[in-house]
């Protein structure tokens, strides 16, 4: 028997830390080769860690939500044969590089074959919920027990992640985040005062988003600008193209037209297609237009990237946007597909609203948001006519983008969209 140690792999280039999202196994489980052991997350991509060996899990290197150093011990598996851990090595393998976060290694003493009247084995479980026998007393400190009572949680339903299955405060939070307490909470009368609280731990994707949003709003000097655009003509063109080519080339949304408008407008406003490294005080203007398209997924906001939009036709862009959105929503987007944008386009679709104030996707300096298209009475040449109108809400990093330039940039986009032919005239 030997021990095979799996270390946290380097998933993306130059990444020093990876967040452990979820365990698919627990100590004592038998695993087979290629079985998924854990989900880890880097930047915005979720990656499965498969087992390279057959064996029995003897120790887990961290808790879900923990940020672990690349190279730190993720999991130890007992295998037939020698394993990859030398007998002479210290019991806790040392990470290749000094980990900024010391991995907690959880081990449980080997259980001898239990006698008939022996203790029950801990039930197999995943996630924060677990069912214990009605008479089984969950291991928990008095403070945790009291808190569970306060929250109306039956402690025996909560999975304990502490030593020997001890239920920790974090486990209560995880349980609440799962929304399991709702099932057991008494139905409240319609107008009854409510005093329940739900605590949701900010981990994983949500933590990444929170960090980035906070970072963006703290560092950049946001300057927002809203312009109203007449989209009647472009909507007519879109309807026409969809009627004519929809069946063969796929339906077009407004997004690929907007991508095209960005590409054309950026030729005259290269300062908008840039990354601002505020520590080095360097602005990098890019020739390539990699458009990030903000997309809502089940786990939160993602920004997949349409690469080299300047080299894509309308339908090419449309197909790429559709493919990336799908990948992001199903969690299959790779790290490359989720990074490297130079400017971002955000749309709330049918929920577009009148105005929004987009938050910059740092280190980019511009983000353009699309609001809802509505029919409005407009005055054109002294006549009241019904036109399809849409607002563009954009934000810029005012540290490096002047208001006048920003306004001119948006006016250029407006001009291109209101006269759709100019989008394609080279």
């Amino acid at each position, binding site marked *: 028997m030997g021990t095979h140690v799996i270390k946290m792999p380097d998933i993306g280039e130059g990444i020093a830390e990876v967040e452990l999202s979820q365990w698919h196994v627990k100590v004592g489980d038998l695993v087979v080769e290629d079985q998924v052991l854990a989900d880890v997350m880097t930047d915005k991509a979720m990656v499965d860690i498969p087992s390279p060996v057959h064996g029995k899990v003897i120790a887990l290197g961290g808790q879900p939500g923990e940020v672990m150093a690349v190279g730190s011990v993720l999991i130890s598996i007992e295998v037939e044969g020698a394993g990859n851990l030398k007998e002479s090595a210290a019991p806790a393998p040392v990470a290749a590089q000094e980990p900024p976060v010391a991995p907690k290694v959880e081990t449980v003493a080997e259980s001898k074959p239990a006698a008939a*009247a022996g203790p029950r084995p801990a039930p197999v479980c995943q996630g924060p919920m677990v069912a214990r026998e009605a008479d089984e007393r969950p291991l928990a400190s008095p403070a945790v027990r009291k808190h569970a009572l306060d929250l109306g949680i039956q402690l025996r339903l909560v999975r304990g992640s*502490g030593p020997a299955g001890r239920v920790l405060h974090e486990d209560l939070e995880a349980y609440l985040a799962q929304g399991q307490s709702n099932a057991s909470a008494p139905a409240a009368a319609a107008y009854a005062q409510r005093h329940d609280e739900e605590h949701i731990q900010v981990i994983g994707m949500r933590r990444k988003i929170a960090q980035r949003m906070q970072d963006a709003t703290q560092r950049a000097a946001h300057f927002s600008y809203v312009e109203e655009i007449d989209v009647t003509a472009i909507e007519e063109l879109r309807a026409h193209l969809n009627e004519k080519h929809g069946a063969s080339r796929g339906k077009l949304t407004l997004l690929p037209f907007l991508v095209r408008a960005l590409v054309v407008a950026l030729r005259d406003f290269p300062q908008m297609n840039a990354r601002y490294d505020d520590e080095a005080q360097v602005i990098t203007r890019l020739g390539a237009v990699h458009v990030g398209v903000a997309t809502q997924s089940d786990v939160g906001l993602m920004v997949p990237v349409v690469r080299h939009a300047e080299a894509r036709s309308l339908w090419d862009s449309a197909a790429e946007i559709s493919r990336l959105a799908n990948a992001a929503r199903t969690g299959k987007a790779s790290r490359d597909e989720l990074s490297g944008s130079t400017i971002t386009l955000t749309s709330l679709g049918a929920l577009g609203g009148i105005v929004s104030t987009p938050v910059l996707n740092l280190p980019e300096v511009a983000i353009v948001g699309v609001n809802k298209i509505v029919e409005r009475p407009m005055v054109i040449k002294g006549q009241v006519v019904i036109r399809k109108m849409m607002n563009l809400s954009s934000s810029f990093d005012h540290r490096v983008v002047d208001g006048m330039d920003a306004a001119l940039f948006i006016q250029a986009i407006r001009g291109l969209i209101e006269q759709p032919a100019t989008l394609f005239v080279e």
Partner: protein
Amino acid sequence: MQTLNTTLLIIGGGPGGYVTAIRAGQLGISTILVEGQSLGGTCLNIGCIPSKALIHVAEQFHQTQHHSQHSALGISVSAPSLDIGKSVEWKDGVVDRLTTGVAALLKKNKVQVINGWAKVIDGKTVEVGDTRIQCEHLVLATGSTSVNLPILPIGGPIISSTEALSPKSVPKRLVVVGGGYIGLELGIAYRKLGAEVSVVEAQDRILPAYDAELTQPVHEALKQLGVKLYLKHSVLGFDGTLQVREPNGDTLNLETDQVLVAVGRKPNTQGWNLEALNLDMNGSAIKIDSRCQTSMRNVYAIGDLSGEPMLAHRAMAQGEMVAELISGKSREFNPTAIAAVCFTDPELVVVGQTPDEAKAAGLDCIVSSFPFAANGRAMTLESKSGFVRVVARRDNHVIVGWQAVGVGVSELSTAFAQSLEMGARLEDIGGTIHAHPTLGEAVQEAALRALGHALHL
């Protein structure tokens, strides 16, 4: 008749009742506490506190006497004498300070205290003299009284623990009936105060509630002190001498000046019209659920009235919880363990499951003990007997029980209870640095020994 209205009415001002009242006051609940005698109940007036005071007097006297004879410590004093009247006065002073303190705490928390005997009318009405009190919640906390033996009615030379705690003189000879913790605590104290003490116990060993290994050091100490044990002897009666039946059926007459009856305590359910509520009972105690609720809505019973274990700290914890329940919080009385301490010499403490109890519960456990003979601090206290014992599950090393016997081990109950409530494993205790030189090192060493690597053994 005057009528008072309140949210919470508590009958009994002992540790259960007064703690309920203080916590209720903190939570802003209008509260009335009814007490017929003195605040503090049995615990402060005729139980825990005065007995510990008397034990302290006895120990000091005993030590001084020891030094007056042949002290290994090199101390020489002339033979001490004892003014027991003054000792009792000192003890009464301690009790007085504590009961006054309780009264001040109740006042500070705006609890109205009514002196008088409560008579229950119904689940929301209680009469005290010519005052009628209407309440929304009723907490019954009347405690317990000593069990009397019909063949040994209290009076004259036959005394209960109450009389034994306020002696006018130390009797030349004392027979203690009952080898439980109350009988032994007082029996040892009286022996140290100079009485010739005998203990009559029906079972075959002292402290029958605890296992033999644990009580052995106490047994040895009794022998050394010269306390005579009459095990497997039962009391037949008293007429100047105490007649007891020997194991072989013969009758033995024990010459004595006083007989202390200490055969246990029973819930105080008589004399205050409790019958009017017709509550479900659990033997002689009121039946309660995990929230101390009786079979009647908004009527709670706490402390000794609700049965075993009859311990002041249990009553206090129940009282605190009941007050929070009444304030609308969601609460449950769910301790992992309640420590029990015997202030014998040596002291004995039990928290959680003993090896036998763990086995009976179907647990496969490691049992390990560490003797004070190998503990430096114990040696400096001239104490070599006793040990700390730990009981932990073999599969995950979670500690399920602690026991200890030895000088001063009562203070270890804190660490024991805390480790059980926190769900500590042997590694947690073994990995906690325990200060040197203390008796507590034996706690760490017991855990290390269970893991197979005690350092000082």
